[in-house]
């Protein structure tokens, strides 16, 4: 057989196919091309969608600054924020307690809620693709119960020091999470490969074992201390200090960027490992990268805010129904939607029974559940569950 060039023949190729199949006039041909273009994600659609979501998120965040123990009008909030940006915190003394509330309580809380919700949703997307399982969520790999165990141990022994303006509880929780990551990986990996079914099993079992430890610790704990544990397990978005926030932001942004980088490979990974490999994906590298990044993000988020459920599992589904399955857009869009959703849920959590708060995990479940049912019933689910 003669070997003929490939690229040079491309224009001839189009004619050839036309000759064989009589596609028809050029106008018809271009409509087909146009419809295909619309089905595929383009850079333009990505930018437009992301900008819209970003603007919406910003609006929701601004609005939520209004609510709390008392209402602080939008104009006042804006003035306080501007003043703070120009003169630093001291410049807002004139605003009295409103200033402190906005800057030290609400703003950090809203920002934290956005970051936590966004990270949980992004990790949910990544894990659903990695495990090829639509029921996956950030807690399925056992990292969160490791973090919870770290927190329980810290509360039990009353460990109380501060390192770098971060209190011990999140640090102990994070160490617990790291320990869980190491255990899960060692159990699941073999011969340098990471089989997905063993990963899932290892996570489930680790969850069970750690939960048992946590229950044991809770039962022997001084009942006076167990308050903290109970509420931590239900999720909390209390205002952290700004230095801690900066560290957290950097950490989450780095992790999120790594996930974003992998999204195209994730698209192919959902076809199955063998198909992905045949399309040029370094499957083992991608799996390990996504696993470790997701686990480290989850560990950090859970350490800071306890276990806030629902966001990581359902937001990816909801966004996928509207936006489609292409992870290049799905991941960042889910992050924005997840962040906004958690900010809204937290606003409800801290106003409904003011001045007391409901744990935010309760609001996410009670609020998001019906929302998801609505989506399932009224839109094409598009997911073979």
């Amino acid at each position, binding site marked *: 057989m003669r070997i003929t060039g490939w690229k040079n023949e491309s224009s001839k190729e189009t004619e050839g196919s036309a000759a064989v199949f009589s596609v028809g006039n050029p106008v018809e041909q271009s409509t087909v091309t146009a419809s295909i273009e619309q089905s595929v994600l383009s850079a333009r659609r990505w930018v437009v969608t992301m900008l819209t979501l970003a603007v919406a998120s910003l609006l929701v965040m601004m609005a939520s600054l209004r609510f709390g123990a008392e209402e602080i009008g939008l104009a006042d909030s804006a003035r306080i924020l501007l003043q703070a940006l120009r003169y630093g915190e001291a410049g807002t003394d004139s605003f009295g307690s409103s200033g402190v*509330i906005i800057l030290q309580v609400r703003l950090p809380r809203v920002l934290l809620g956005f970051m936590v919700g966004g990270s949980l949703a992004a990790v949910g997307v990544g894990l659903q693709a990695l495990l090829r399982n639509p029921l996956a969520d950030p807690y399925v790999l056992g990292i969160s119960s490791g973090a919870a165990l770290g927190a329980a141990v810290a509360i039990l022994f009353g460990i109380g020091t501060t390192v770098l303006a971060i209190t*011990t509880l999140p640090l102990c929780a994070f160490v617990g999470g790291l320990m869980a990551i190491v255990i899960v990986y060692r159990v699941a990996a073999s011969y340098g490969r990471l089989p997905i079914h063993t990963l899932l099993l290892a996570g489930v079992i680790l969850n069970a074992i750690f939960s048992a430890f946590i229950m044991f610790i809770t039962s022997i704990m001084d009942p006076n201390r167990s308050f903290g544990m109970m*509420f931590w397990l239900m999720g909390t978005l209390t205002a952290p200090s700004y230095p801690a926030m900066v560290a957290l932001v950097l950490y989450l942004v780095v992790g999120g960027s790594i996930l974003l980088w992998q999204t195209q490979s994730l698209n192919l990974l959902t076809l199955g490992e063998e198909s992905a490999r045949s399309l040029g994906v370094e499957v083992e590298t991608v799996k390990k990268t996504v696993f470790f990044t997701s686990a480290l993000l989850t560990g950090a988020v859970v350490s800071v805010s306890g276990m806030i459920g629902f966001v990581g599992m359902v937001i990816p589904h909801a966004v996928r129904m509207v936006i489609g399955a292409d992870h290049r857009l799905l991941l960042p869009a889910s992050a924005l939607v997840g962040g906004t959703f958690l900010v809204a849920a937290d606003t409800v959590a801290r106003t409904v029974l003011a*001045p007391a*708060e409901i744990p935010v995990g309760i609001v996410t479940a009670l609020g998001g559940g019906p929302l998801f049912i609505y989506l399932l019933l009224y839109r094409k689910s598009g997911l073979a569950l």
Partner: protein
Amino acid sequence: MLCRDQQTRRCSQEIRQIQAAWACLIATFLIAGLAQAHEGEQQPVKRRQQGILTGMPFMANLAPRTFVDDLDRKIYLAKAPTRIVSLAPSITEVLYAIGSSEELVGVTQYCDYPPEARLKPKVGYTHPNLESIVALHPDLVLAPREFLRADFLGKLEQLKISTFIFDAKTIEDVLSHIQTLGRMLGRSASADALAAQMRQRITEIKTRTATLPHPRLLYVLNSEPLITVGPGSFIDQLIKLAGGTNVAARAKTPYPRLNMEEVLKEDPELLIFPVGTAEGIPDSEQQVWKRWATLSAVKHGRFHHIPSDLLNRPGPRIVQGLETLARTIHPNAFEDKQTP
């Protein structure tokens, strides 16, 4: 509402079912929440009535040696019990205070006052060990309402072990419990004397603080998340008696998880931390609070700690707790008083 074309009728039925289910679920939560809030109001009224009648159970048709506990269960004690198991540190303290320590054969691992109580056999606290209790052959088990599991109580009744449940919601409850125990154990004299003494001291403190300004304070049960005491809780009553104003007064539950904004708005002048016996306020906790530099309490450095046992245990030492609290809130007013 729109339904997908193919299965319109079934679809709308399903939607109705789902809506009904959610409505039930939400209704359950609301009802539970309201009931709990309501319960907090009801109880004090009932108990205060008992107290007004000098602590005697207001049931004329009650036979002697029959006692009614806080779950409205009647028990009959032919004679004073000689082997008693106490399932709460507060109850243990009462028994020692009225002179019944000899009869005490079983305690919890947290019963540490007076120190001799630590020598008694342990049976557990949140999850009492049934076998240990039975092995001690008690003729009376005294248990607190909290941590009580229905199956545990049922088992004790099945084994024909008399059990008496205490649920102290107010200070008056504590006093009437002391007196009831005195009658049950044949130590009415010492019990009534103790109760009278306590009442007197409480009244003294109350009068003394009544004329003083009541500073705002925050009682920090837990810092992160912020949990404090609210209306309906024991400690809230103590705060009022001690002459303080609880900044969580607007809350609707006894142990609310409070929003920091409320604290900033109410601006407490004092922060009170309950601590264990040996420690002060942990460093990390202080750091957490020192962030809020606008609070009066932080500006003037008014961080105080009180031994948690004095306030948590509804027993004889609440008076000490009340005194300590009053002394903390009004240091000038109590200079001359000695704490026994």
